[in-house]
């Protein structure tokens, strides 16, 4: 079996700037954690703050692009893709093609790198 571990935290605890002691500290801890679990880790990455998020929403067959993270409580996280795209428009174009059985939302977040 493979599992996805989805990390939920209050992003406010890291402050506004990426370059800060809290970030450095947690980064070191993640490095230690990766060492510790060894081959059990297949892949993973941090995500940029939710203020950088864009959501492509599908409702009744119509798609629309919105600022901000996914905010519906009636839909649950069902999977994820990590993609390579030249910019947000290219990412949106791919997000529009993600299969959905009916309605749904695809949240787009830059991966920290």
């Amino acid at each position, binding site marked *: 079996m493979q599992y996805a571990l989805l990390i939920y935290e209050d992003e406010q605890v890291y402050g506004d700037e990426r370059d800060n002691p809290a970030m450095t500290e947690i980064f070191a801890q993640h490095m230690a954690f990766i060492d510790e679990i060894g081959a059990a880790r297949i892949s993973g990455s941090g995500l940029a*703050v939710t*203020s*950088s998020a*864009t959501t492509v929403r599908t409702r009744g067959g119509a798609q*629309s692009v919105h*600022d901000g993270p996914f905010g519906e409580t009636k839909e649950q996280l069902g999977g994820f893709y990590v993609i390579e795209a030249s910019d*947000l*428009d290219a990412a949106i174009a791919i997000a529009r093609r993600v299969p959905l059985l009916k309605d749904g939302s695809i949240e*787009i977040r*830059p991966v920290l790198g």
Partner: protein
Amino acid sequence: MSPGPLDQGPLERVARQDGGRIIAALAARYRDLDIAEESFAEACAKAAAAWPTDGAPDQGVPRDPAAWLYRAADRAALDMLRRRRTRQRLAPDPPSPEPTIEDAMADNANLIPDERLRLIFVCCHPAVAAEARAALTLRMICGLSTAEIARAFLVSETTLAQRLVRAKRKIAEAGVPFEIPGPDAWAERLDAVLSTLEIAYAKAHEDAAGAGPHAGYAAEMLKLTEVLARLLPNEPEALALAALVRYAEARRPARLDEQGAMAPLSEQDPTAWNPALIAAGEAYLRQAARFRVAGPRALQAAIHSAWCARRSLADPAPWPIVLRLYDALLTLRNDPVVRLNRAVALAEVAGAAAALAEVEALDGQALNSFAPYHAVRADLLRRLRRIDEARAAYAAVLALGPPPAERLWLERRMAGLNA
């Protein structure tokens, strides 16, 4: 930058006139709105020190002040990027060379590329918060100050500044491209731009008095829609929007009566309208009409055109045409605003009872805090002599705190109920 129209030295003049183009060119070149704004501000500060503020005209002012500002800003932007890289402990680029004599002598006419269209698409990207798009466009393209935009949007300067900071950060962090969208996304993205400008103009139009900060802001909307129409001469909806804004602005002088109350369109004296703006609107609408597609903005412009064709109050009001145009608009935009406007025309053509039936079919609960809903209802009930209901509807609009000119008019109508 000072917002006043009077104290225009050479720097203020060029910043107002060419600032948007310079900032857009910088933003497109460095793909960073903050760098564009900050480097332009630095160039203006340099100009303020180097150029004379008064005295002999043109003495010491460069032959092409816009090109001077662009070059100075460009150097400042490179310095900023270099400092940023040094901070991030990356190897800095070598310093940029000082401009050569050839640079200074070069024909400046084509020096500053016109990247405003790209920048408009960035500012109106659907990934930018809807409430920030219009403000960001006015800031970046028109160079309006945060204070000016805050006044027009009726929010505090701090709130507006925060919105702008968040929007710019979003654009940078999410990787919004500084590109004109491709054919796949074109229709949707263009619509986002046009809707943003419509919202921005609605803010300018709300104030019937137009004597306050809105007057200058409306002038910026004339400029902005002109720029867009010039950049997109094959987009009928962009042309129609330019027409729309001109028709609406043409009527500004007639929007208030002697007592300062709002004058409804049908009661405005057409001889007070601005004929030059009407002619400019007609020219844009004719251009748009060549494409033979009646989009929502073209239909709205056509409604304005029908009204502006009236030469005096003795001419009959164009209600039957207006109703037909609203019928067409309704097929494209079935929203409460269109349905309410259509009901107003229907009342004139088919009677108040028919119009009220249409209004009562709307979701009153959802429209409870929407002033035009109560205002239209109140007027129809008044005409049908359903006095108590009309009074309650007028009270509902007044409770929503309309602008003074509208309040005065509503109060007058409400007082007339007993006559």
